[in-house]
Structures are given as C-alpha cells and as structure tokens.
C-alpha cells in the first residue's frame, strides 16, 4: 500500500473514536498551552523586573563621557554633538517602536541645607517631561508635585532627605556646590571651580523606598542646574529607556556607530549597572532552566499519551498484521496517526495558548490574587505581570513539541510493528 494511502488511513483511524481522539488531543494540546503560558509569564516577569529596575538608574542604555562609569567625576560632560546625534538617531522612524523615552541629565554633588540641618546630595538636572518617560521618581511623588517644565527653582527631594532637613513642600533649601571646570582648563590644584550657592524651593517629595535614593537624590530643572554649575547647554549623560529589554544591546551598538571616533561610552544596562546585572544573572539562569523543565514535562506527557494509545490497541494491531498488513506498513500508519494527532493537538494548543497568553498580555496576572503580603506593598516591582511572548518563542515551542511528538511516536510504531501475532490476537 502506498505511503500516502497509509497516511490517509492513519488520519481516518483517529476519527473512529472521536471522543477519545479529541480528549487526547486536548491533553497534548494543553501541554503546549501551558508551555506557552509559562514561557510568556517567565519572559514577561523577567522583562518587567529589569524594566522597572533600570528606571531607578540609567535606563536600558546610557550615553556618557568616556571614563564616567569609573570616575563619576562632575567635570566630565558630553560633547553637545553627541547629544544631538543621539537625539536625532533615537527619533528616526526605525526607532519609533523601540524607544520608550530618553532623558538628558546633568549630574553633580553638593550640600543641601535647610535652617535645621544639611546633607550631602547628588543632584540631577533634568527635563521634566522627558524624565517622566524614563525615571520612576516622577511617579513616586507623595507630597506636592513633580517638576514643571516652566517652573523655576523647584526641587524634588526624597522623604528621607526631607525628614533629615526637617522641610516640607514649599520650604526653602540652599544648594551649595563647586562650579564645574570642564576638563581642559588649566587649574593648579584639583579643587574645582568656585563655590556656588542657590536658593531652591521644595516643590515635591518622592518616596521610592530605596534608602540611597530617598536620602540623597534631588532633581532640578535642567536649565537651572546648568546655570548653577556654569555649564550652559551641557549635560553629563543621556539615559535611554526602551520598550523591550532585548533591544538594549542592539541600540547601544547602533548608537556607537553614529559616534565613532568621539570619546564617549555607550553602555547597555548590564554594563552601566553591573550590580543589577549581577542580581539578574541568577534570574536569567532560572529562566533558562525552567524552560528546559517545562519542555521535559511536556515531552513526558506526550510520550505517556502515545504509549498508552498504542498499548490499548495491541489487539487491533495484531488483527491488522493477521490480515496481511506488513509490519513496516503498520509502522507508517501509526506514525501517520501520530502526526495527525500531533497536528490536531498543536492546533488546539495554539488556539488555547495564544488566547490565554493574549489575556495575560493585556490584562496581566495580578499576583495579589494569590498572596497577601506581610510587607508593605511592592515598591519596585509591579504586582501585575504582563505576559510577553515573542514570535520566535512561539515558533520554537511549537517546533519542539512537534518534533518531540514525532520522534517519540517512532518507538510505539516500532513496537507495534514487532507485535507477536498469536499473542496479540488473544482476547485477554
């Protein structure tokens, strides 16, 4: 009997027991469904953790002067050409769906004083509208308001700093720092420029929950900061936030190509925030292993199902062989059945899986349903996870499940072909 005919018979065999077939297909399909859901949640939660965490620092990619990562010296500033090139590049059509926001910043350190006390602080001069798209500080205002684009002399500080200085919204504080001598100036001692003081009013107080930020970071409108430090039009870094963490490396490399020859460092977050990268290293490994485990379990399920089917039809195979079907043909028929079953299962699984994934991608999975926290509500991580599944992942999942099912079906086909005739025909 021809190959094609055997396959067709295989297909029809499935439908001799429609309920059984559908149940089995469902069972197998659910395997794929669960695989897609778990991959989506794993990828989604990982992505989310990273995306949230980088927003407390320098974003997915940062552009800063060469050597800044090591020294954090206030004297290092970005050449204006780099800033404009970066901006131009990030606003091209190609980057439209890749970029989420970019924020140029001027950084310096100094002393912030109130009538009651003073404290060392790290100043960030920012453009409020752009900073909103990148940093999470603007969203964590607990009192007052964040900076306005038109407001002058407003400063936002953290709750810890506000407590230490005993100030509230509307109170005044004085910021004192050394004006910057951009590198290249002839200065005998390394003391920096003139000491400058400026009056500021607390316009808002934020709370991130992270001690280091709440006690030491202050934000000011960029033009104000530039005037204070004596560097009009200059910035220290450009922090870039992307839609997808996975694009970090690519964007960094593409940007680098735009500014070859100029001493700048364009760093993806793993390099600009090695601490964070360290913490997520384990998480990456976790994802990797979990993927493997899910696949193993799905494979096991497939194996089981197919084996059971074959054993159940021991008698039937014996009959086929007795009636003249050659063992090889029997094997092909079984393989045909398996392929058909797999295809059916995959179809079911995909439909279910993609719909579930779509639900989790839009509505998200609210972790709070499952747990009440003993600690105050999450500071850094959103309690709602959004599933993220790339086309590549879907394709590879389907591919692997299909491959596994096919390969696994060879064994029962082989065993079936080897059925011992007289035994198989026995009723019991």
């Amino acid at each position, binding site marked *: 009997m021809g190959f094609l005919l055997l396959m067709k018979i295989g297909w029809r065999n499935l439908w001799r027991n429609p309920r059984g077939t559908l149940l089995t297909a469902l069972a197998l399909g659910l*395997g794929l469904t669960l695989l897609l859901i778990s991959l989506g949640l794993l990828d989604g939660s990982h992505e989310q953790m990273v995306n949230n965490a980088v927003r407390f620092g320098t974003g997915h990619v940062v552009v800063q002067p060469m050597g800044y990562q090591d020294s954090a010296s206030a004297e290092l500033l970005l050449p204006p050409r780099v800033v404009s090139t970066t901006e131009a590049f990030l606003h091209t059509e190609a980057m439209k769906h890749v970029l989420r926001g970019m924020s140029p910043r001027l950084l310096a350190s100094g002393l912030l004083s109130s009538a009651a006390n003073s404290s060392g602080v790290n100043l960030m001069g920012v453009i409020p509208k752009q900073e909103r798209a990148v940093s999470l500080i603007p969203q964590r205002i607990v009192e007052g308001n964040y900076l306005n684009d038109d407001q002058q002399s407003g400063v936002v500080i953290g709750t810890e700093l506000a407590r*230490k200085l005993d100030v509230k919204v509307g109170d005044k504080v004085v910021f004192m720092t050394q004006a910057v001598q951009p590198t290249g100036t002839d200065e005998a001692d390394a003391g920096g420029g003139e000491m400058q003081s400026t009056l500021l009013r607390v316009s808002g107080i934020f709370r991130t929950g992270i001690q280091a930020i709440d006690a030491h970071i202050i934000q000011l409108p960029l033009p104000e900061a530039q005037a204070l430090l004596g560097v009009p039009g200059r910035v220290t870094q450009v922090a870039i936030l992307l839609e997808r963490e996975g694009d970090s490396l690519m964007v960094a490399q593409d940007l680098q190509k735009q500014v070859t020859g100029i001493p700048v460092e364009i760093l993806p977050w793993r390099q600009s925030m090695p601490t964070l990268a360290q913490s997520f290293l*384990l998480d990456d490994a976790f994802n990797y292993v979990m993927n493997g485990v899910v696949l193993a379990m799905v494979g*096991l399920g497939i194996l089981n199902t197919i084996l059971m089917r074959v054993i*159940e039809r021991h008698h039937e195979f014996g009959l086929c062989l007795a009636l003249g079907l050659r063992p090889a043909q029997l094997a092909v028929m079984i393989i045909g059945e398996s392929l058909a079953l797999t295809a059916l299962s995959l179809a079911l699984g995909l439909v279910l899986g993609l719909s579930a994934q779509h639900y989790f991608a839009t509505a998200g999975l609210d972790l709070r349903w*499952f747990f009440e926290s003993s600690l105050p509500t999450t500071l850094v991580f959103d309690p709602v996870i959004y599933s993220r599944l790339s086309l590549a992942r879907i394709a590879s999942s389907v591919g692997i499940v299909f491959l596994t099912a096919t390969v696994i079906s060879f064994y029962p086909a082989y065993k079936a072909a080897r059925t011992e005739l007289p035994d198989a025909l026995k009723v019991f």
Partner: protein
Amino acid sequence: MITRLLRLAWRNLWRNPRRTMIAMTAIGFGYTMLLFVACLMAGLRQQMIESGTGLLLSDVEVQAPGYYPDRPTHLTLGGRDGTDVNALVAAIAADPRVQAASPRVYGYGLISGTHQSVGAQLLGVVPDQEQKITVLQTRIVKGSYLTRRMPKGVVIGDKLATAIGVKVGSEVVLLAPAVDGSTGNDLYTVTGMFHTGLDAMDRNLVLMPLASLQELLRLPPGRIHEIAVKLHHDDITATMTSSSALQVQLSKTLPVRVRGWPELAPELADYVQFNRRVTFILFFIFFLLAVMGIVNTMLMAIAERTRELGMLMAVGMRRVQIVGLIVAEAASLAGASLVLGAALAFPLLWYLQVHGLYLGGDRGAITLGGVAVGPLWHGQQDFTAYTQAAVGLAVTALVSALYPATRAARLRPAEALRKV
C-alpha cells in the same frame, strides 16, 4: 480487609507490568521534576538573599534606638549606660537562631590621597568576627584584607582608590568629625583593595579595624554603633521572626532596636517576594502538567480494562468492591510511584544543594573588573513544597482513577464484556 484489598490491588498492578510501568513513570517522573524545580526555586531565593546581605548588610542589625537611618556618631550602644558591649555580642551569638555576631563602628568623613580627597563611609570591624558574617574578604583584588598586625591598615574600594590616586601601600589621611565635635584625623596605609561590582561600596567604603576607628572618632572602647548578626535561616519570615524575638529579649536589659534585612533593604525583600510569587505560579503550572500526564494515564489504564472489570462483575464482584479495588490500585500505584520519584530525585537534590548547577559560559558570564562571575546555582531543600506536591499528585491519581472506575462499574456486565 483493607490489607487484603491492597495486596490484591498490588498484584493486579503487576499482572500487566508494561501498563503499570508507564503509569508509574508518569507519576514518578512528574514528581521528580516537581522536586527538582522546588529545590532550584528555593535555592534561587536563598542565593538572592545571600548576595544582597552577604557583602555588608548582614541579616540583622542591632543598634541604639534612633540610630538608623541617620547614623549620628554619638548614638552608640554602650558607653554611658555602662553596658558591657562584649557581653551583649556574646549573648546574641549564644542565641540558637544566630550563627554569628560582630560589633561595628561607623563614621563618615573624608579620605585624602595624593591629590584628591573624597567623602567616604568608614566602617570599623573586628576582622575575625566580621568574616563570619560577611564575605567582603573574598572580594579582595589587590593586596590583602585587614590583619591584626597592621592596626593602621585600611582596605578600600578599587574605584575609591582610583578616585584619590592611591594603590596598595600608599598612605592616606582619614578625616572625620569625632564624637566630641573635634576633627579626628590620622594617617593610614592602604593594605588592600576590594571589588564588589556594587558602586556604593567600591566608590565609598573604607574598611578598618574597629579599635582604630574608635580612636579616630574619639570613642572609648566600650562604645560601638551596631552589632551585625548572621542567622542560620534568613528567609524573609525567619528573619523577621528572629529579629522580633531578639528585640524582645534584648530590650529586657537594654534599650535597643533590632532590624532585619527586609526592613533595611526593602527593595531586596520586594525582589525576593516577587520572585517567590512568580515561581509559585510556575510551580503550579508544572503541577498541572504533571497532573495532566497522570489523569491521561489513569483514564486510559482503566478504560482498557473494561472487559476485565466486566468479567469480574459477571463472576459476582459487587460494584462497590470494583471501585474499591480500582482505588486501592491507584493508591498503591501512586504510593509506589512517589517513592520511585523521590528515590530518583534525592541524589539529584543532594547534588544540587552541595555542588550546585554550574551555568557559566553560555549565559554570558559577566566579567566584573576582570573577575568572571558564572552563576552557580545551589539548590535548597523545601520540604513543604515536596510534601504538598506529593499530596497533590496522589490525590490527582486517586480522583482520576475514580471517575472511569465508577463509570465502568455502572456498566452492565454483558456490555462490558463486549468491549474490545
């Protein structure tokens, strides 16, 4: 009666070894996988906590009330109250929950090298005791850690060294407001440099012998700022329980404030909680996968015995007994499979805990300052999860046997016999 039933059930299982083996594999291997995953997940959480607390933070900090977070130099444990600080440290270390305790002194001031001076966090420790609590000594990249032989030796972060232009062997000046308001200052030698990858430490921290810092700050020997504590169990719940207990116990003799790491680093606790929840959901999904395999298997196994059951009914077995027999079979099958699964798993779990899973190279082992850091993932036993999984699987096996069994039992024997 039950034992007879079970014995019969067990023998029944082995009348068709292949079918039984397949079913056992489904349940057993499913259990093994669940154990493996639970172990890894628990290990992951543990390692996250350790990497967050192991360098500087420690599990629990004992301080004078009001000391944290501003850390004013004059708010010390000991001194004026006439408290015996050494006794306090010893008392804490003696607590069964505590693995080790170590005294610390903090200061904030200026470190000055050849050209530059920068603000620095000064930490005075007792090297022998501190090393039982934190692992900073493993991050020395140049020179060596603190030793008794050099009371004026300091260990600083590598970025700090670069910022002020010094190397191992260089002299530095430390300047800090002393407790009496004067400006403490003295000369020290850099004996070593560390690299942690954490900017806050590499750029700011100066480690020195406790006694030397006390001298610099004009603090008498009986006054310290903090006792750092390492616990035997430092997951979130255990830590908070232990620190409350310590708070109650220590407060009986002395006003103190005991804080666990979830309070000191809420973002880390946040991360751990988040991870725990995600892994729980994953575990649940895996459980579903395992369950599906079992249900499928059991359904098939029993459906294929319809004729056999019909025959039993025909020769007089009552329906109730049939269902009972099936359930007993399922129970023994589940039991045996779980044992098998666990047996397969235990060497694996042991290996995971002791040696860990090395996942270097392909996951992009990051080099931090030339030191390659490949993730080594240690497992951690999570017996609660193990038991829950076992119970869940057993119940699933029983329930999924029950349905087809009752259905078969309700057939008329003649019909059942006719099934091919």
